């Protein structure tokens, strides 16, 4: 079961809750609002025309507050929830057209899921929880324990394999949840508010661990969160949901620099921009080839780091370098300060 990469393509997905959802899809397509659908037709609009294309091997964050439909959305990818209309295509195969048996195989081999409240089996030891997916597949025990042990160590639970979930702290329980998902060696990792129930410090640790793991594993990760800091930190791509529809899609720089509307602007306002904005997104384009003795900054450097580096150097301007150290632009302290302080107006080329 090598985990080759898998892209996920969600197309025009609708989910309506109620007694006769099929009849309401047409109404929603014709522009009936969520409020009207609830009031006049007695149905709840869960997801409204969602289309997302998630590239293979990247971390796709889906962000939204409670009730925005994010948990409903992630459950469509492994079809824990049936959509009312639309398609979910993983590697060219529509998940929604799979038979019960095919779906089971798909879930066993292609996806793994981490849950907000861990969803561990309380009557099983850490090891038996971790190898649950392999056991369901029917792998022989000795072999699965070997794989399980590797992941238990990898998530930092060395020596805890014979313990039971209730003996562990929340953070450790979620490590078990993560190890269970990784042991499955699936190409798609679905993380439903996986870190929301954890303390801030532990959450930061776990985010770091996920990013480290992702460097070597290159899985397609779908990560649900209600925390913008978390979204900006780990998301290669971010989708922001509100009331079941997409408000904005893009990478962290797009969200921070060009919030699509007031709703997102309000979110973005309280974020520590210096930690997430990168010099590549706020630099001036290269005007002359003379780069001289200016300090050099990689285009992925955060503004926070860039400001510190410039403050420590004699010059207050630096050359931004792209792939392979090639100069791609300039940045100076003034631009950095401006990008840090302005909310929505900052444009990369001012």
């Amino acid at each position, binding site marked *: 079961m090598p985990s080759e990469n898998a892209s996920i393509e969600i197309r025009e997905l609708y989910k309506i809750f109620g007694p006769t959802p099929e009849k309401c899809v047409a109404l929603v397509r014709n522009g009936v609002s969520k409020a009207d659908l609830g009031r006049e037709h007695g149905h709840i609009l869960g997801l409204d025309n969602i289309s997302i294309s998630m590239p293979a091997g990247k971390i796709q964050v889906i962000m939204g507050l409670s009730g925005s439909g994010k948990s409903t959305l992630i459950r469509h990818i492994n079809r824990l929830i049936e959509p009312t209309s639309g398609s979910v295509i993983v590697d060219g195969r529509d998940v929604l057209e799979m038979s019960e048996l095919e779906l*089971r195989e798909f*879930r066993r081999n292609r996806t793994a*899921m981490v849950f907000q*409240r861990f969803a561990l089996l309380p*009557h099983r030891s850490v090891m038996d929880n971790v190898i649950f997916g392999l056991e*369901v597949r029917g792998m022989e025990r000795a072999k699965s324990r070997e794989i399980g042990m590797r992941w238990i160590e990898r998530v930092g639970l060395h020596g805890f394999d014979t313990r039971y979930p*209730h003996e562990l702290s*929340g953070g450790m329980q979620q490590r078990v949840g993560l190890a269970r998902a990784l042991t499955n060696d699936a190409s798609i990792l679905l993380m439903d508010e996986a870190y929301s129930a954890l303390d801030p410090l532990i959450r930061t640790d776990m985010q770091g661990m996920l990013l480290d793991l992702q460097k070597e594993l290159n899985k397609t990760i779908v990560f649900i969160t209600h925390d913008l800091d978390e979204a900006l930190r780990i998301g290669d791509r971010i989708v922001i949901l509100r009331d079941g529809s997409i408000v904005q899609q893009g990478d962290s720089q797009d969200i921070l620099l060009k919030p699509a509307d007031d709703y997102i602007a309000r979110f973005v306002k309280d974020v520590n921009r210096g930690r997430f904005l990168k010099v590549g997104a706020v630099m001036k384009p290269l005007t002359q080839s003379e780069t001289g003795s200016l300090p050099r900054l990689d285009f992925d450097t955060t503004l926070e780091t860039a400001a510190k580096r410039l403050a420590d150097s004699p010059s207050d301007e630096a050359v931004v370098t792209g792939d392979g150290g090639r100069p791609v632009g300039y940045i100076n302290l003034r631009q950095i300060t401006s990008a840090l302080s302005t909310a929505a107006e900052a444009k990369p080329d001012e």
Partner: protein
Amino acid sequence: MDWLFQFPQIDSELLLSLKRTIDGSLRALTRTYGQSIEDFFYPLLQVLIFFEKLMVGTPWPLVILVLGAIGWLAARNWSVVAAVVATLAAIGLLGLWTDAMKTISLVFTATIFAILLGIPLGILMNRFERLRKVMQAILDVMQTMPPFVYLIPVVMLLGIGRVPGFIAVVIYAVPPIIRLTDLGIRLVDKEVLEAADAYGCSRWQKLQKVQIPLAMPTIMAGINQTIMMALGMVVIASMIGVQGLGLNVLQAIANQYFTQGIFNGFAIVGIAIIFDRISQAYGQRLQKHRGATHA
């Protein structure tokens, strides 16, 4: 004004003929199929006799040893073992050993049958919403109908003896295990079930790896209640030929032997305590690892 004080009942002729028809056809049924019904239950009779012989025929020290060992295995607690041994000794000293063994063997087999019948029914009831509604109505009737009433058709069909008594005990004792199996499965955490689905469990895998183990403490509570109900029914079942402590109580009632009644009554209580402690302790040991998950 007569009609105000006399409820307008169905014509008494009609009622009488209704009763006659039903009872008559039941009797006719018994006459025609009596032998085949008896043949059908013959294996059951053999099982009952086997267990009774086993309990009565085994030397008493061995019985005490085995029951004490079961107490230890289930509870891992010496005070439970001590309670089991002391109760059995007291029963023996009062001269009720053989009767107590008969009662224990009946309650034991009835409980096994009730479990074999009740857990699958509880699972089915949990799976099919419509079946649950029907079952719930039936269980309500079963639990409120006076047991004497359903002794009548059992006796009409099977006469008097071990098998009809056993059937009456099982019918009386099975509702709690059905209900609590259903309840236990329903109480399993939704997110854990979702995890089972997300990892590709088949229905059977989900049932066997997740639902049943997590429902087990509740199911054990059901088994415990079932045992208590079966013990309670032993006295009533003695009216249709079940031997053991219940029969002694029945004789005591008929002859106003107060002391005999008290002794046998306490022996039943003692057996109840043994079964209860063992099954409760086992149920609690099952819960050892399910302290609330941190959230």
